[in-house]
Every structure is written in structure tokens, then in C-alpha cells.
């Protein structure tokens, strides 16, 4: 039996794999950045919500009403929405990590000095998991967008 690493790639094949790995790594790093940003913003929103809940009755006065009033939001609604956003952020972050791993494994295979390490198999598994996560994200975000479009 032949391993994936023993496939006879010609230079054109290797160039195609290398080019894909570079863009894959770039997308993975952007996804990690976006996921981390979402998580940091979520933490900031939680801190702001807690601070407002603690200090709002003290600083609100009748003579100077608040500039923006977003309406009454219960803690359960707030927690649900924030939990959903954090879940999406974690999915984006995990997908980015998997894409970066897959890209590094593909580049290791192209520039490898030994064939024993199963770089290609690891890359394909990481890439497959990243695409499953991507499909979940697309289903959630796309479904949400279509649902919002139907409401409008």
C-alpha cells in the first residue's frame, strides 16, 4: 500500500498545493483574528452591561435623560444573544486554527526532509473539520440573514 505522502506529485502539483496552502493560512489567521475580536467585544459588552446595571440608578437623573434608550432587555434575552455570539466567535476561532494547522501541514509536506510524518493525512483531517465548522457557520449565519430578510 502507498501512503499519501508517497504520491508522485510533479512540480506543477506541488506549486498548486503550495499556493492553496498560503491562502488557506491567510484565511485561517484572519478567522482567528475575527474570532478573537468577537470574543473580546463580547467580554467588553458583559463588563459594560454589569457596570451599567450596577451604576445606572445612581447616575440617571430626571433632568438629564439618557442620550440613547434601547428599551428594556431582560437578563435572559441579553444572555441568550450574547451566548449565541460567543458560540459563533468560538466556531470562527476554531475554524481558523484548523485552517492554519492544515496550511502548515501542507507546507511541511512540500518542504519536508522526511516522508515518515503523516503531514498530508493530518492536513486533510484538519481541513475537513474546518469545512464542517464552516458549513455550520454558514447555515446559522445564512439562515439568520434569510430570516431577517423575510421579516423586513
Amino acid at each position, binding site marked *: 500500500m502507498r501512503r499519501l505522502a508517497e504520491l508522485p506529485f510533479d512540480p506543477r502539483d506541488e506549486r498548486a498545493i503550495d499556493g492553496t496552502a498560503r491562502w488557506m493560512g491567510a484565511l485561517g489567521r484572519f478567522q482567528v483574528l475575527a474570532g478573537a475580536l468577537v470574543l473580546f467585544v463580547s467580554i467588553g459588552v458583559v463588563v459594560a452591561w454589569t457596570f451599567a446595571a450596577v451604576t445606572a440608578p445612581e447616575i440617571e437623573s430626571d433632568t438629564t435623560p439618557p442620550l440613547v434608550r434601547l428599551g428594556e432587555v431582560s437578563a435572559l434575552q441579553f444572555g441568550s444573544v450574547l451566548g449565541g455570539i460567543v458560540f459563533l466567535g468560538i466556531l470562527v476561532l476554531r475554524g481558523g486554527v484548523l485552517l492554519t494547522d492544515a496550511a502548515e501541514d501542507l507546507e511541511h509536506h512540500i518542504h519536508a526532509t522526511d516522508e515518515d510524518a503523516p503531514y498530508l493525512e493530518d492536513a*486533510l483531517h484538519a481541513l475537513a473539520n474546518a469545512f464542517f465548522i464552516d458549513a455550520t457557520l454558514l447555515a446559522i449565519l445564512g439562515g439568520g440573514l434569510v430570516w431577517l430578510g423575510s421579516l423586513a
Partner: protein
Amino acid sequence: MTETLGERRRRGEDDATAPFVLDRSSVRPPTTEPPPTHETGASPNPDEHAHDEHDGVVDLVSRRSIPSSEPLPAPAATSRANDTRRLDKPGRRAARWLAWALVVDALVLLTLAFTSLGRLLDEGAGAPDLLIGSVSLVLALPCVLGARHLAGVGRRTSTPTHDAHGFAQGIGHLRALFVIKATVLFMTLGLGCFAFWLIASLLALL
């Protein structure tokens, strides 16, 4: 400088794990006179001929006769393209797992695309539906093509060269997908950061 695997492959050299191709002519050049061997009874001592040589270089291997039933040693350089071993199970499983993931991704994208375009045709919805539908269709195409090529890797009828090209083409089709996604995500991140800075500046002014 360490020689990489890619450089060795480009030169057509093989490693120790490569299969054997039996070619008697490449192992030893044909000679008109067979050298004296132990089987012919020329010398009972195996090292005797080595001591007879005065130039210091004795090719003991060439003095040995090889029966026709004995397998010959492998030549040093063997082309990988001549190897007809089938892809092993972990390799086939990894390629098909990725093909399935691409199929699932493509199905989700096509569902989104047809839902948006259907709404656009039925209700005459606006630009967002057209944008979602067209982008989903564009993203689904590389997924379908990549899944098609990767699903064919490791079939019983395919040769190793065909497997390698199919694998590279399947991965290469995904490049368009990654380029589009990375560009859109970069623009979204940039615009998001700019909007965040703008809102923060306006709130600071107030």
C-alpha cells in the same frame, strides 16, 4: 544545506521505501567472460581472488554468480511513476472525509443560494438577496469541483500519477474559495475596525 523532499522528487530520485523494479541489465554490465566462481570450483577459498588482485580494488560482488531464481537487488534510482501500489486506507479515508466535508459545505451554500434567488424571483426582493445568492453560488462551485476530484483519489482503477493529479487539482480548486473568503473577511475586519473607531470618536465628541 538540507536537501528537501521536493528537490529529490524533481530529480526523480527515490528513497528507501520505493518499490523494486527488477532490471538485470541495470545491475551489472554484461561481460563476455564469466568470472571464476566458487560454484565452478575455481577456488575453494572465497577470499582468494581478492588477494590475487594487486590494484587494491576488488569487486567481490561482480565475482559472485547469481542463480536465475534468486531476486536481484534493486537499482538505486527508481521512478515513482512506475509504482503501482494502491493508496493505503488512511490516505483514502482522509481524502474522502474532506470530500464529504466539501459536499456538506456545498449543499449548505446551494441551499442558501437557491433560497435567496427563489425569494428574489418570487417576491422581487432587494439587493441583499441577490448578493447572498450570487456569492453562495460562486462559493459552492469550487467546493463541488474539489469534492469531485478528491472523491476520485484512491479508487481501484486509478494510477498513482492520476491520484496525485486528482489530489492536487482538488486542493487547487479550493484556492479560489480561500482567496474570496480571505478578501471578504479582510475587508469586513477593516471596515468593522474603521466603523468602531468612527463611532468611538463620535461618542467621545458628545
